[in-house]
């Protein structure tokens, strides 16, 4: 993010609305801050928003490109063609004039450092991971012309830290199944939604997550039928359906620790408030210890 602050002269937000989802992003990294090559801050950056609707972020941008819902992949593919010196047959794609895209690609090629931030408007719409792949491919195409970065606008507190820790301990960032005694990875089979839709889990331990609010109803519904143990400092929709709720300290507020920023930089968090509750690892370690005891008893 520091290089974005210091060097970027072209910033594109695609399917991302930082004005609502990442309110500090614009002032700390991507919009207004002054840096080594951006002494005038906002004035030294050209900011583009690509979205299906006029989001609150648009008013902070220099250009808004409105595309038709679900057309991200087509638009990105045309941009890749343009980046590689080819032109499509039609004049318009996804409701946008090819000429407009041509100008944008040209800006990317001439940028000192271009950055494309993409959000859930890319990952959770028609095309899903194919859209992200198209964005990364566009970034690779651009590397032949200019410095160009593509960065996902990760949401949820410390989701990058969770991904990193899972990765160094298991080799995989999420959707890890320990059922065979070693980590296995298969999104589409072992991710939470898949497991719940198959009604496979017979107990759920939920730490710092809100499945009743965030997961598709059909998947979340299964949690009503099985015992659930929830570790959370707040009352949530999930604590309401839980069999057992263990209140824990709020990471980064009442307990010190480490969180990873969206660009994978580990940040030390201090505790600023007192809390009578334990840290997350205390109940979890206690549960593991007890399971081991019960196992050795049943083995004996």
């Amino acid at each position, binding site marked *: *993010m*520091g*290089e974005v*602050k*210091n*060097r970027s002269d072209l910033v594109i937000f695609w399917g991302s609305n930082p004005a609502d989802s990442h309110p500090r992003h614009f002032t*700390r*990294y991507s919009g207004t*801050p*002054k*840096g*080594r090559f951006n002494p005038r801050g906002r004035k030294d950056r050209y900011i583009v928003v690509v979205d299906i609707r006029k989001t609150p972020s648009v008013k902070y941008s220099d250009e808004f490109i409105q595309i038709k819902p679900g057309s991200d992949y087509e638009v990105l593919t045309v941009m890749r063609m343009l980046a590689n010196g080819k032109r499509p047959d039609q004049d318009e794609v996804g409701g946008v004039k090819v000429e407009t895209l041509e100008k944008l690609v040209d800006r990317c090629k001439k940028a*000192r*450092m271009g950055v494309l931030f993409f959000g859930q408007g890319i990952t959770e719409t028609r095309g899903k991971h194919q859209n992200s792949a198209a964005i990364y491919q566009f970034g*690779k195409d651009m*590397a032949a*012309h*200019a*410095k160009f*970065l593509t960065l996902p606008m990760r949401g949820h507190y410390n989701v990058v830290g969770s*991904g*990193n*820790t899972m*990765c*160094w*301990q*298991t*080799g*995989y*960032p999420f959707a890890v199944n*320990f059922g*065979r*005694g*070693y*980590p*296995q*990875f298969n999104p589409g089979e072992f991710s939470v939604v898949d497991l719940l839709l198959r009604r496979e889990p017979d107990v759920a331990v939920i730490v710092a997550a809100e499945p009743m609010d965030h997961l598709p109803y059909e998947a979340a519904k299964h949690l009503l039928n099985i015992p659930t143990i929830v570790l959370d400092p707040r009352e949530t929709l999930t604590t309401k359906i839980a069999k057992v709720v263990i209140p824990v300290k709020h990471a980064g507020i009442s307990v010190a620790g*480490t969180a*990873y920023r969206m660009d*994978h*930089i*580990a*940040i*030390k968090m201090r505790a600023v408030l007192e809390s009578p509750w334990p840290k997350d690892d205390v109940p979890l370690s206690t549960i593991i210890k007890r399971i081991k005891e019960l196992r050795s008893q049943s083995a004996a």
Partner: protein
Amino acid sequence: MGIRIDNGEVVDPANKVNRQKIPVHIKDGKIVADAGSDCHVIDAAGCVVMAGGVDIHTHVAGPKVNFARLMLPEDHRYDHISREDGYERSGAGGVVATTFTTGYRYSEMGYTTIIEPAVPPLGARHAHEELVDIPQVDKAIFTLLGNSEIIFQYLENGEKNKLQEYIAWIIDTTKSYSVKIVNPGGANLWKYCDNLHNIDEKLKDFDITPRDIVTGVSDAMTALKMPHPLHLHCNNLGVQDSYKTVLATIDALEGRQIHLTHLQFNSYGSGGKRKFSSEAPRLADMVNSNPNITIDVGQVLFGRTVTITADGPFEYHLHKMTGSKWYNGDVECEDGCGVVPYDYKRKSFVNCVQWAAGLELFLLVDDPWRVYLTTDHPNGGPFISYPYIIRMLMDKDFRKEQISKISAEAGTEIPLKVLEREYSLEEIAIITRAGTAKRLGLTNKGHIGIGADADVTIYRKSDNYEEMFATPAYVIKDGEIVVRDGKVVKQVFGRTFYVKPETGVADIQGDLEDFFRDYYTINIANYPVGLEYLPNAQLVECGE
């Protein structure tokens, strides 16, 4: 209770012991003169007893290593360790194994100390978090400083004292053991999609050259009396005529102490029909005639692996060449990195020359105290191949058999084909533990004299050296038996070494506050890595 190892042939080159049958006594985690009568006795008849292995350069932790894990699910799928096999923690294997697997596998190979050599300052907190999860071995990190804009600023202004002060500060701030420089200046230029091509080429925004960077940082480290000298990955790595850059760098260093890392990757010329040749003999001569230089090899092995380096522009070059997956990361104000999976093929002329160049360096550097065994894990191949490499060094018939399997065209051209040298057990002990520990300045490692840490490996003698070094009969870490017959029997957690250079030659607090405010996105108060990230920290004193 202590341990006594009887009847083993002790190979301890640091103490000039070579295959003598003398008992080794262990008590309270140390090598002692007498463990007393009430001790556990290991009968090491038919075995060789050495200190635990010390790896001077292996990428095992930190942001870019974790990106490599993330990028290679296919690599983990068929290689894993399970709790059912008796390990405390399961994990994935492959060329970039998970942290626990990494610790277990080093231990099962008889290694007890490893160095993660390339951590950008901003990645130090992450790297230390991973080190906490690497069991069985002692460890340390080196901090990457070859593309640091603060250092560039001080070099440009000729502020030597401030440079020295900054290096002391950043080493303490990152809880690091030494300094690594990768492609000095080149990774900075990569932030403009560019690179540097010789050591006297000027950077874009700073009126300095790679020559200024390596000499300036080296002088500051000497002034700080750091136990390990500058650890350098030269410019122009991996391309034709890279050896010329090495020779120019050595000239520029004018006799300063230097460790040239994975030199194999810099030992290429442009001779022959294919315009790609091994210049390892020339570089070996250079090492032989310059006592200030030590090297590790970075041996290439055939098969699939992944390249992980702070040399961002090189990784883009490799991606364009292979069409393989590519990750690039730029670290604010500090450095960059890249990850690209790679497959070294026996039918590739270039890969064969690379493979041979590594062995040539091993065989042509005369003094084993100045050449060390590495694969630049995982860049040349995974560390679990060390026993195979040892067999190629010790057994020339086996080596010739391996040469006969490579591309016929390369087989006729490589200087390796005429080399007859075989390493002795003593020389293997030097390039895998005694030499590396000495160069690292870890006085309690790499030997089993009285007072040393009780890190001991017992290998069952065999004519098949690969088997011998892959499955030690016993590994003892800090006086505890942790491996039997090549299998972990006890999980332990080692120390993390760090240094705290003493200085006070300049006041840089104001400069740092200004720099952080203007160019970083992290507050200076949140930047230092505290000792709470090193639960088993051990301070190593800088020299007198």
